[in-house]
């Protein structure tokens, strides 16, 4: 990897001011960043270590929600009693991701910002990649695209957003809190990620030097929740398709529901159309099927990933069935 300067601030203010220079990056668990630095995909000139910032707390909020510090490790969040009790979909999503060792390292903030696993993005010798090298082209569109996205793609990039946690956070409508050189702000997770469009290298609304301090998860609409992840092997593998469902069922009818999909979108994919189809309807297989059709209506498969359309539908149907049971 290239040389970098290593800074180790003790306060959030210091961290933000240290990271405002060009080429600076925060480092949390390092499981995305060190990996990509070894591959010369990320070449920060300064690493600002945020591990000693006081951002590792999980706290219940007066409104019944949960505040999760950016430095809370994925394993600690997954096993947190409140998360297991009130946000099972999040616990399941976290435990389906990576490996126990990696989850001990990976943080809430870092997970929100993990990069795609597109093989062309990860290999600087692999040829054009608009995300890695803006304006050069996309090798995946006519290349190996079995694992690529079918929703939210553009002619410039079809890379899948790889996270599981972020899909559950999307179904739970989390709010992301940010602190930067210009002050503090919060962004709903559904407005946080950008579609690739013609600028696939810009993945979210964070500006240079902005630090994620914590995430707030509002009270869930129901404890009927489920995260289902389908992949090439039973563990230690990214999703081909996944679904996070939170459903409030009253008298056999869907009162309200939140559905988000992973493994198929260029960002964690909220399925508003599917939710609309289900709201007020009986919780039956026929309506689950209609919801899944609606969720995938805009799907645009490429040469090798047409199977994902059907896989994602079945994933949504099964997740709805389990969550509402």
């Amino acid at each position, binding site marked *: *990897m*290239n*040389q*970098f*300067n*290593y*800074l*180790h*601030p*003790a306060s959030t203010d*210091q961290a933000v001011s*240290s990271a405002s220079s060009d080429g600076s990056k925060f*480092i949390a*668990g*390092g*499981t995305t960043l*060190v*990996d990509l630095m*070894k*591959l010369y995909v990320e070449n920060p000139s300064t*690493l600002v*270590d945020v*591990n*000693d910032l006081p951002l590792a707390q999980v706290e219940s909020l007066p409104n019944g929600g949960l505040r999760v510090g950016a430095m809370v490790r994925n*394993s600690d969040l997954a*096993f947190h009693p409140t998360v297991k009790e009130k946000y099972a979909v999040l616990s399941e999503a976290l*435990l389906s991701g*990576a*490996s*126990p*060792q*990696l989850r*001990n*390292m990976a943080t809430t903030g870092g997970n929100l910002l993990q990069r795609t696993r597109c093989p062309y993005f990860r290999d600087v010798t692999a040829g054009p990649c608009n995300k890695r090298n803006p304006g050069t082209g996309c090798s995946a569109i006519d290349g190996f695209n079995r694992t690529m996205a079918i929703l939210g793609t553009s002619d410039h990039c079809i890379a899948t957003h790889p996270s599981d946690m972020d899909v559950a956070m999307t179904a739970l409508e989390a709010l992301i809190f940010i602190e930067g050189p210009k002050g503090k702000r919060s962004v709903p997770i559904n407005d946080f990620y950008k579609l690739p469009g013609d600028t696939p290298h810009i993945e979210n609304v964070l500006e240079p030097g902005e630090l994620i301090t914590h995430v707030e998860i509002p009270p869930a609409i129901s404890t009927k929740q489920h995260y289902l992840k389908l992949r090439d092997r*039973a*563990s*230690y593998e990214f999703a081909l398709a996944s679904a996070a469902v939170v459903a409030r069922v009253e008298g056999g009818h869907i009162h309200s529901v939140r559905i988000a999909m992973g493994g198929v979108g260029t960002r964690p994919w909220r399925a508003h159309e599917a939710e609309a189809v289900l709201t007020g309807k009986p919780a039956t297989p026929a309506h689950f099927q209609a919801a899944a059709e609606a969720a995938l209506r805009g799907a645009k498969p490429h040469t090798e990933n047409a199977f994902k359309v059907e896989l994602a539908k079945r994933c949504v149907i099964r997740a709805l069935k389990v969550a509402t049971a």
Partner: protein
Amino acid sequence: MAERPTLRDDQQLLDLEPLSPSDNSVTDDASSIPSNLGRVSRRTFLSGLGATGLMVSAGTFALAEEESGTPPAQENPSISRSTTINGKSYDLTGLDPRVTLLDLLRERIYFTGTKKGCDHGQCGACTVHVNGRRVNSCLTLAIMTAGKEVTTIEGLGQPGNLHPMQAAFVEHDGYQCGYCTSGQIMSAVALLKEPIGTTDEDIKQAMAGNICRCGAYPNILAAVKQVRGNASA
């Protein structure tokens, strides 16, 4: 004792951290350096290959702090610059921040029980404990373990004084080639303290971060079950 050649000043090995005697960036009393110094190191071997594509010019890879004589910038002077590995303290002052914990262990202080499989978090061979929790040392920058306690397979137990998990792996033949084994054992010991379920499936999921190319999985499971059973009995 194999002679250890010194790299020319203007050359460094790509991604292999130097072992040359002049490199004292990790300081340590001599007694704590394991006695296997005399083995043919990987670096000696690679250096012996001569000018293969591995040599790169110093412009990119020289150690910044050795040039300038000052440690890398650090804003909080109270933060510790040393790390404890298997009970002994090692000074990290001046260490190139690019050195991973895995390379520090293997290439600089010769705790070679920890293995490098993929170097990208995908296999688990490099699993060690940091403050009692299992992590992938290949994705951990050594400098980020300052003030922490690292335990490797060497720190877990030694021949004649094995950790119960090491003994169980021997008893159940939980390996074939042995390459993944130290990582498997470090994971297995860590999971004893993790809030996982009691079924075989729970143990398999908890061990999923350690790939075994020899497929010793059933025997590994038997070893873990035995130690867990004894611990809870």
